[in-house]
């Protein structure tokens, strides 16, 4: 029997610095091994090994270290961090470190998975190409989501990103098929009422019975947030690639996650890059986000929707910036649209879905979809430019053309982007609204739409036909 199995507990902590504990005289400890830190009053807190040498180990603790002293006990478990997986996870609610919060017993399974997961071999990936109809025009029409995509919502505090995510979770469907998404929901540092909002929403729509919720709330230990999204992705991988389910993963709020990572980095005295974040923030975020996707020969899929709030609405802030470099696009919510009463307050111009091209067109949505979307972008950009001009020269200073585009932009926001929280539009409805708006413009201006599509879908010819 090895010392570990005997439950060896080291009492050799030499330093506690923020979330880090430095232990001396350790033997046979592995990098990344899970640690249990036992406080003088017998409480156990999880940690893992960040740096290990022949005779010391540096441990990051996922709970609170305040109140601990150098008399803590440290037990090395000999394992990297794993969670038990089975179909019984479905419908359950857990804490950010996978303790049951629903009063039910801990899940048991002989099948345990490392929460860091593996890397999907790029050669084994299937290209995501199934259009998901969310019923929201600004998404379906202009930034279409496909199964297996990772598409974040960039928002600001106070904006209705939770409602939008809940609406997507409620309405998302593959047209023509009656498969529903199961939801894995992970909260990092959000408020109780926000978590409660999601729980109620999922309960009301019946989604709760096919959801797994993993909650680290605002008053839970911040460092625990480092493992919460990884647990969520591990559950999602099991459900998707072992059980063949289609999973929508919602991670909110990734900014809180990144802040936890930053505090570890600062405690380790690493060289910071921008705003104190470590240089490996990009790679670290990638190890969470890149677990989404599809695998050839497997039925299930993981579609990922991280939500993050941009501090100060600044899209160049490291968290949204690096996220945007990893994810396949982004949906951007903006305060000025919100103040004008537009729901969802999505600014489509900086929003993007990179995988849209594979998911739309003939046989998927409609053949004119790509061109229409392209033309809407151009016209709306033109309109917002005119809107900027109005502030300086007034409406009277605009040319007739500019005035037309200004009106287009206003109507586009009110009629196309704006819709009800319970309004579920089909893709045909979305495209028809688009055509009605484009009909405001001279036909010669519709330069991004193929002529044959104009003849087929322009209201002018449709009415005649």
């Amino acid at each position, binding site marked *: 029997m090895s010392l570990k199995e005997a439950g060896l507990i080291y009492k050799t902590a030499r330093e506690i610095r923020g979330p880090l504990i430095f232990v001396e005289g350790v033997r046979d400890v592995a990098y990344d091994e899970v640690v249990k830190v036992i406080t003088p009053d017998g409480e156990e807190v999880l940690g893992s090994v960040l*740096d290990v040498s022949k005779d010391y180990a540096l441990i990051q603790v996922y709970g609170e270290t305040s109140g601990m002293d150098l008399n803590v006990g440290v037990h090395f478990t000999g394992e990297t961090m794993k969670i038990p997986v089975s179909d019984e996870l479905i419908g359950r609610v857990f804490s950010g470190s996978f303790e049951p919060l629903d009063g039910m017993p801990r899940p048991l399974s002989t099948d345990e998975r490392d929460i860091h997961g593996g890397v999907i071999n790029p*050669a084994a990936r299937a*290209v995501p190409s199934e259009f998901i109809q969310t019923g929201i025009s600004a998404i379906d029409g202009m930034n279409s989501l496909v199964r297996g995509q990772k598409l974040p919502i960039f928002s600001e505090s106070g904006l209705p990103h939770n409602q939008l995510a809940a609406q997507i979770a409620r309405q998302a469907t593959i047209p023509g098929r009656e498969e529903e998404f199961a939801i894995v929901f992970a909260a990092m540092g959000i408020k109780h009422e926000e978590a409660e909002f999601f729980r109620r929403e999922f309960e009301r729509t019946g989604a709760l019975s096919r959801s797994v919720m993993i909650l680290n709330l605002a008053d839970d230990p911040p460092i625990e947030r480092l493992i919460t999204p990884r647990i969520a992705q591990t559950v999602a991988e099991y459900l998707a690639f072992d059980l063949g389910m289609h999973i929508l993963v919602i991670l909110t709020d990734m900014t809180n996650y990144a802040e936890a990572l930053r505090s570890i980095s600062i405690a380790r005295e690493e060289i910071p890059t921008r705003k104190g974040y470590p240089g490996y923030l990009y790679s670290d975020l*990638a190890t969470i986000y890149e677990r989404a996707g599809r695998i050839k020969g497997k039925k299930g899929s993981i579609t990922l929707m991280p939500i993050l709030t941009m501090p100060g609405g600044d899209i160049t802030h490291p968290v949204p910036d690096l996220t945007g470099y990893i994810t396949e696009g982004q949906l951007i919510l903006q305060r000025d649209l919100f103040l004008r009463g537009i729901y969802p307050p999505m600014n489509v111009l900086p929003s993007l879905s990179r995988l849209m091209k594979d998911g739309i067109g003939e046989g998927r949505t409609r053949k004119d979809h790509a061109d229409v979307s392209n033309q809407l972008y151009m016209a709306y950009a033109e309109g917002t430019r005119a809107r900027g001009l109005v502030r300086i*020269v007034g409406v009277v200073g605009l040319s007739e053309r500019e005035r037309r585009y200004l009106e287009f932009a206003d109507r586009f926001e009110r009629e196309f982007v704006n819709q009800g929280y319970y309004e579920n539009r089909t893709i045909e409805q979305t495209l028809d609204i688009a055509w009605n708006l484009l009909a405001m413009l001279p036909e010669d201006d519709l*330069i*991004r739409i193929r002529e044959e599509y104009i003849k087929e879908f322009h209201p002018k010819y449709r009415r005649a036909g």
Partner: protein
Amino acid sequence: MIRGVIERINGSLVIAQFEAEPKIGDLVEVGNLGLMGEIVRLSGERAAIQCYEVTSGIKPGEPVLDTGRPLAAELGPGLMGTILDGVERSELKLWEIAGPFITRGVRIAPLDREKKWYFEPKVEVGAKVVGGDIIGVVQETEYFQHRILVPPGMEGKVTEIYEGEFTVEEPVGKLKTPEGEEELKMMQVWPVRVPRPYKERLPLVSPLLTGQRVIDTFFPVAKGGAAAIPGGFGTGKTVMLQQISKWADADIIVLIGCGERGNEMADVVTHFPELTDPRTGRKLIERTVIVANVSNMPISAREASIYLGVTLAEYYRDQGYDVAVMADSTSRWAEALRDLSGRLEEIPAERGFPAYLADRIAGIYERAGRVVTLGSERRIGSVTIIGAVSPPGGDFSEPVTTHTLRFIGTFWALDTELAFRRHFPAINWLRSFSRYIDVASRWWSQYDAAWAAMRARALELLEEASEIEETARIIGEKALPDEQRLILLIAEMIREGFLVQNAFHEVDTYCEAEKQVKLLKAILRFYDSVEPLVRKGIPIERVREMRVITEIMRLKERRGVEAIERVMGLITEQARALAEEYGVI
């Protein structure tokens, strides 16, 4: 082979004590799993190892083994159309062996040891050969003829040469060298961090044609040159590089996905086999090698992936081919450098990057070039390197972008504003530049002697338009004189009718050279036809109403150049009609 013991593990950095002094750059097997690593720092028998695989679960006290060899690429038939990771393992094979998730400690020989290739000799017994000489060929894919070379540094007299089916390790002949008899094989090994030798560098003479108008006409890159494409996220770097990979008139494409998205690599692997090369009619995948080290793979292997890609390119160059390397993204590679430098506790320079960042960037781009290869017959090959840069916050003043600019000849500045209005490729025509205009002018003059003048004029109009727009932003377009409003109209026509190119439109995705010239000519012809009319007082609104404008802007979607000739006629006709209406002939 020197043995050692692990002392410390800190992420991808492993410190080990060896029995004897190893060499820096040596490849090491780390821990009981035998993970791959490379020695990056040495102090006597103590070495710092950069580990290419995840180190979770590894303990101090586990063994390390120095292989005595540097990180090297295996070169030979069997790489074309494959997808490799940063250390040249075939990801298709990895999938076969270990399932859809990458497993640690799996060793795969880069070149298939079982597969037999039909070797057709090109030398006879008794011939004297030197390094770089072609001893035979293998038809690797229907499109690609792999030329088997005498490895650099080897020379002698051919004593035996065989024809037939061989594996890459079997001898295809024998060479009598001053040192004795050596076997000739189809496989060679070359350390990735060392540039492959050549005889002489040559001046660049022709542009790399990409079928992308904004590149070919306005900001061309020469074969053997280097280009950088920086841009914030969503500005279209990846689509641009994929477009170039698809349509560039290079013989071989090496596509390096360095720290980027897995789905994008899957996209290439899925779609390239469906696409045909417009010049040869062959499937694009037959001339493409993919190195895919995606963002959630260990950061250290990212660093190696670029060197691997460039080494492969040089090897094909040595066979006399024009090779284009796409590296997406060099910023992720630089981050890998930064990560390792931080773990080694080096003093950082700008933004945490090590002080040697500029040297490393230069080291990569300098491997581009057009050269006379080794070998007794004169053979010319080239490597063009195109690197994407992902500046944080889209800020071009950050170190990777600024250092890159020093070492490249063409700069395609991607613009967020253009991307927002879905003006793709979102290459900003005012901020981009090309130092290969002279080379391009000579080449393009075969289509039109006035090419350089036309290009300069179009750029001038665009620049003038941007100045006028500045004014318009203050006083409104309506208040501008009609001559200036005409320039705005022409600029819009150049933008929409020429610069904007739809990568997903069946015709527009590729624009042949002749069409590019004629298209630009048509737009300028329109300007020359209506400019005198506006000067003589015909209102700009009437000019805007001319039907031919839409015709011109739609020309790019029409196949071939016949439609352009027809529209040229329409321009003259409609301009004359307008003039007659106002009596200003």
